[in-house]
């Protein structure tokens, strides 16, 4: 509990605060008419501005309605285009499937072609080898024929020698001893065997 002096002091402070508050209020009240005029002016301007904004809003509303109408039309057109696009996409999908099948078929044919080409190349190689073998065989054959010709010539020469020897043998039959005749006969037999052998070889080669 505060004493009377403290109460007086508190009261004095409170009264001073109240006086200051009143002074502040009076100051505010003093400028209130001007402020009220200013606020009224602002209010009038705001009212005019509101009217302008309302007019703009009406115009904007009309424009928005037009835009909405255009937007509806555009939406309808977009839906139509979307429908066409959907059909086109469906057709493209079907074509893609067909293309895939064709590509698969083409790949299969391509593989077949590669196999045929490989076979063809191998055939050509085989043909080339065979031609080479044929050429070599023909060359060998020519050589053999030449050998045969030479042997024929040699045979004819030997036959000629044989006939000459026979003639000599006949002419010198009486002059040769028995041993000489046997020696000549062996020589002739050896020549005949040799000719036969050559003839036999030629026969195998010509086969």
């Amino acid at each position: 509990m505060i004493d009377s002096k403290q109460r007086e002091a508190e009261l004095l402070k409170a009264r001073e605060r109240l006086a200051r508050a009143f002074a502040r209020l009076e100051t505010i009240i003093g400028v209130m008419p001007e402020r009220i005029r200013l606020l009224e002016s602002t209010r009038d301007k705001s009212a005019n501005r509101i009217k302008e904004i309302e007019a703009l809003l009406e115009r904007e509303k009309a424009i928005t309605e037009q835009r909405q109408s255009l937007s509806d039309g555009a939406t309808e057109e977009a839906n139509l285009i979307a429908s066409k696009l959907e059909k086109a996409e469906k057709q493209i999908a079907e074509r893609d499937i067909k293309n895939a099948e064709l590509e698969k078929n083409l790949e299969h044919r391509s593989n077949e072609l590669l196999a045929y080409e490989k076979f063809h190349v191998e055939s050509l190689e085989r043909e080339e080898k065979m031609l080479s073998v044929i050429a070599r065989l023909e060359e060998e054959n020519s050589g053999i024929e030449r050998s045969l010709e030479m042997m024929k010539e040699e045979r004819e020469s030997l036959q000629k020698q044989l006939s000459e020897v026979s003639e000599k043998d006949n002419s010198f039959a009486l002059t040769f001893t028995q041993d000489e005749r046997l020696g000549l006969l062996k020589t002739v037999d050896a020549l005949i065997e040799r000719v036969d052998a050559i003839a036999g070889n030629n026969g195998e080669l010509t086969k």
Partner: protein
Amino acid sequence: MSESIKLTILGSEYSLRTNDEELLRELASELDSELKDLQQKLPGKPPTTLAVLTALNISEQQAHTQMNELREIERLADEIEDLCNTIEFGKS
């Protein structure tokens, strides 16, 4: 201008100077009435005792009055400051 007046309180006469005779007479009448009421409640008590008890009552009333006044002034100052803030800053 202070002038001298005569007042009677609880049968005794007092000669006093005052600038506000009417107020002083009214206060003296109220004091005399309170003393007489107390005298009826406490018969036989000497006037000094009655005066002390009455002074004590008056002091108590004054203390209550001052506290009420203090609270009222604080409340009023708060309201005025809130009002000023509302006007000046647009908020309380």
